[in-house]
């Protein structure tokens, strides 16, 4: 397994929300990728956006600007 590093993670209530996040980040050239939601966040399923911690401000700005359907924001080791 890879060594865990700190990530900024965004969870969503719908798959459409996760894909909208990916599109917004790609369009704005903000780093990160979609990953399965880790169990440390929730035992449900679905995808979340995992970004390097230094991208947090940009990601949060996009969430507000694009009215993205976000469930939660986390800083965790992944």
């Amino acid at each position, binding site marked *: 397994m890879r060594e865990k590093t700190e990530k900024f993670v965004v969870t969503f209530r719908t798959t459409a929300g996760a894909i909208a996040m990916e599109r917004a980040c790609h369009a704005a050239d903000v780093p990160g990728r979609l990953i399965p939601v880790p169990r440390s966040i929730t035992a449900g*399923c679905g995808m979340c956006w995992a970004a390097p911690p230094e991208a947090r401000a940009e990601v949060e700005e996009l969430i507000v600007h694009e009215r993205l359907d976000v469930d939660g924001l986390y800083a965790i080791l992944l």
Partner: protein
Amino acid sequence: MIYLDNAATTHPKPPGVAAAVAAAMDGFGNCGRGAYQDALSAARVVYETREQAAELFGCSRPDHVVFTANITESLNIALFGLLNPGDHVISTDLEHNSVLRPLYRLQKAGTAVDFVPADSNGQIDYEDFTRLLRPQTRAVVCTHASNVTGDLTDLDKIGSFCRSHGLLFILDTAQTAGVFPIDMERQQIDVVCFTGHKGLMGPQGTGGICLREHVEIRPWKTGGTGVQSFLEDQPMEYPTRLEAGTLNSHGIAGLHAALAFLKETGLETIHRREDAMARRFYEAVRKLPGVRVYGNFTAQERAAVVSLNIADLDAADVSDELGERFQIATRPGAHCAPRMHRALGTERQGIVRFSWSYFNSEEETDLAAEAVRILAAEAR
């Protein structure tokens, strides 16, 4: 075969639609059921298709585009999810059974329903919407075009009526989506129900609903969503609220290609071409002895449908003759629109419906008109 039954389903489809379906079947995992590449490929195309549909219908949010199997499912979801016993809903005699049967079922459960009547040429009087208004009226549901005559309803008038009385406006676009501009915001439409396989020229098995913000539809089915798995109820966020179970992402990929074709070609170009062929046919047959054409051809805009009868011949016989002898595909019978046929007085005879798509030709149109001329002459 000359295919003139495009009001039932468009055929052929634009180049690239079948290939997109095949590529999706080869390349897609399950949309929203994983974060690996094949599942993400499906999820991305599904999302892009939501964006395309939102743009087409003037829906402000792609996540308020819900996919269904067809427009009948869309209308059932909207009507059963919005109306309650004690509510009153106004509809019209122009409707297809995809609207009528859900309304009749709701009626049995205690929702009051009134229909704006159509006259003997299938026309409605917009003053009747006001006449039928009650304090309990909650919504208007109607088609954008009669699937029997091709006559359009006036969305601006109905939208404005709904807004001024605080009613929900639920629209059936089965005969118009992909051909006529529809703008939910400008025309004040709360719920646009669409099918993917007619004017949108995508695969059968695709359809959907576009919703204005704050329209709250009860989910009619619950099940797997790929998210919020430990929640006992269906998640209430759109589009997931109305999309339990695996989506038809293969079909949606085909719809994606079809919507790209529509955008590239332009609705106006498509409409003008279809309209020119339908009117060419109408002009060729309307004065033939024994031929009766239904609907309003003085209207500037109408769907590319010409419905007719020859003398008192059974529409089924005429359609069969057109198919077997002239290799022309048409639709006879009642077209799942019983109230409209009652208004037109054609319950027993039925009607033969010719309907065009962008991919028909003038030559096909002329051959069809010539076939009608021959059959009309033989009927004398």
